[in-house]
């Protein structure tokens, strides 16, 4: 089932009539599904204005003038990782200088100051630690739920979860069921990188492959756990591989409807083995947001994750198809260890200003994209 009904036809401004993207703009406006070839055009055209106009038309039809943000906290519980992804500046090997692992008590200590402060989400992502027992993960979830019953827990990328299945020798379904019983509310979109085998073989060959990533997400959806999806763009992938990635997500969403948002992530070049590539351009950032909006006609939300886009590009992205800017965050390591120059947190007041300056109406949301003040179905569904 298509979650997105056909938008009303708007007149295409005459300045775009000569655009090489006119066929794609018109299809998007007519609510027609874009093809693989259309997608490649979106990524190879220089006309980011026509692209942005079309993505914005779809975005405004879906979400009006609203741009969402939330009060969240990141918990990067460990940076110890059994994998060596080429694009990663965050991971360390066990015992290596700069490696850390928080006990469950340390996790609680880290977030204790935020108790009863209206926090809506914990975003918990770590390295794939080689020796932690499964009980560590469930203990952490239970402890956080006990101390912060009103905060939704979005935790563990598909890569971490696939590893937990390997570790325990249990099927994914059992692992996710146990995590859910311990307090997991949602699965973040990380670890997707670029799905194409060619790319994964070159930059992250040891970790779960694309099929496994999809298995985790499909299983989560079957268990009633919503998830997000990402794409790490701007390293060695081609336009075709980007479109393939996005269309695989569209297929998943056609089957399950469990994806809440799509988040294109810009590769950050500092202190990792792909550093010589440099950072992708600002135009590419907008292209990824807009192409995501236009190709994923069945995914409700497109997120401009300000931590890695930078506040300025994230603000522009709100006019290029994004309807969410993520949250207050306050402590972030994965991108900052890769040279992100953004602050590690923004106040709620500043997030609202940034959204307003873009001519949008800021609306606080919970983890499940319910405006704050309304009952959260996802959280309700998973509460004892």
């Amino acid at each position, binding site marked *: 089932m298509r979650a997105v009904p056909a938008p009303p036809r708007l007149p295409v401004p005459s300045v775009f009539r000569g655009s090489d993207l006119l066929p794609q703009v018109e299809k998007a406006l007519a609510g027609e599904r874009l093809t693989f070839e259309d997608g490649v055009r979106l990524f190879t055209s220089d006309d980011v204005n026509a692209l942005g106009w079309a993505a914005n038309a779809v975005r405004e039809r879906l979400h009006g003038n609203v741009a969402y943000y939330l009060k969240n906290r990141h918990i990067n519980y460990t940076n110890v990782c059994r994998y060596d992804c080429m694009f990663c500046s965050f991971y360390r090997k066990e015992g290596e200088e700069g490696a850390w692992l928080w006990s469950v008590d340390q996790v609680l200590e880290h977030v204790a100051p935020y108790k009863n402060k209206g926090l809506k989400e914990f975003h918990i992502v770590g390295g794939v630690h080689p020796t932690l027992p499964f009980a560590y993960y469930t203990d952490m979830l239970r402890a956080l739920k006990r101390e912060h019953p009103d905060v939704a827990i979005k935790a563990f990328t598909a890569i971490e979860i696939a590893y937990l299945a390997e570790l325990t020798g249990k099927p994914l379904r059992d692992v996710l069921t146990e995590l859910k019983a311990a307090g997991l509310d949602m699965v973040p979109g990380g670890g997707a990188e670029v799905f194409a085998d060619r790319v994964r073989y070159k930059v992250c060959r040891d970790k779960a492959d694309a099929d496994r990533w999809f298995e985790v997400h499909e299983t989560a959806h079957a268990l009633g756990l919503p998830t997000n999806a990402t794409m790490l763009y701007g390293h060695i992938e081609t336009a075709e591989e980007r479109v393939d990635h996005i269309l695989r997500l569209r297929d998943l969403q056609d089957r399950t409807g469990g994806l809440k948002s799509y988040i294109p992530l810009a590769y950050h070049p500092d202190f990792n083995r792909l550093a010589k590539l440099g950072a*992708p351009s600002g135009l590419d950032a907008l292209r990824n947001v807009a192409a995501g909006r236009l190709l994923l006609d069945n995914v409700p939300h497109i997120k401009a994750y300000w931590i890695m886009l930078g506040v300025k590009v994230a603000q*522009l992205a709100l006019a290029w198809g994004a309807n969410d800017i993520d949250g207050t965050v306050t402590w972030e390591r994965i991108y900052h260890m890769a040279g992100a120059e953004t602050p590690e947190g923004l106040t709620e007041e500043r997030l609202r200003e940034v959204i307003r300056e873009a001519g949008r109406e800021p609306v606080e949301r919970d983890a499940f994209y319910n405006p704050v003040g309304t009952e959260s179905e996802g959280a309700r569904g998973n509460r004892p």
Partner: protein
Amino acid sequence: MTKLLDRAYEKAAAHERLDYDEGVALLTEGDTHVLGALAHARRMRLHPEPVVTYIVERNINYTNACVTYCRFCAFYRAPGDKEVYVLSHEQIGRKIEELLEVGGIQILLQGGHHPDLRLAWYEEMLRYVKERYPVNVHGFSAPEIEHIARVEELPVETVIRRLREAGLGTVPGAGGEMLVDRVRRIIAPLKTTTDAWIDVHRAAHRVGMRSTATMMFGHAETLAERVEHMERVRQLQDETQGFTAFILWTFQPENTAMWRYSKLESHQYLRTAAVSRLYLDNIENLQASWVTQGARVAEISLRCGVNDMGSTMLEENVVSAAGTTYALDGKGIERSIRMCGFEPRRRNVYYEAVLS
């Protein structure tokens, strides 16, 4: 969509001159992407080659002593403050040698309004530089020139002639801020009035020097006042054709007396850049402000009317004092330009290609 906006779109697309009301309509109601596309079309008409230029230049701020106390400025120190400095000729020379090592051809020489320095001091500094180094001196904003004229009790044009004879090449557009006296009274009550800023540039053009025009926005001004600023610049350009470029940037509030102002990010920057490209139909070049916006937004602006990436700067003391630090060298600028589908080209102050 209003009739006025419709008409503004049509005129912009037909490359006709926009009037003030149409400019205001574009800036207040225009669709961001339509503005970007119209401005890009105008830029491609003015500069049909797929080229983006930049200059290898160094900023040199010869003093931070200033008696003008602009509320938006984090750079100045009051005379007597222990952090006041005045660069010696040798210090300036060493900075220029660093510039020459990286292939630079120009210095942007600016400073605070020092109460005691006389015209002869500026002339000596210029002669020192010009006798030793093959660089163009792009120097002294209109308020500095007006300040020197006041100290010397000489007419502005006399001061300009003497500075030029001593080696001044071109005049930067700094101090333009917002060319609206209502706003100037709020943000810089002791600084050059709008008319005086215009008069200095007119005089510079009259003696045969080129200059640039700037706009600092995102503080006390209204959207309409931004267009009023553009109108003043356009009028003088009709009269003299002396401006080579227009440069706009967003006010950086940190460490200034105006820290309570909410800092503009990029959305207004991009829209205002696009409208200025359309409104200033008689000024050839529009510069990106990567120093306030960062490389990523500068890249985006190259599709919204901007055709020049400005300068390598080497050091930057004014915006960074206000809490914003972006850095790009020639290599970084060229990479940005290429990633956006353009060919980088080094230029001089007159926007003529130079060998790199």
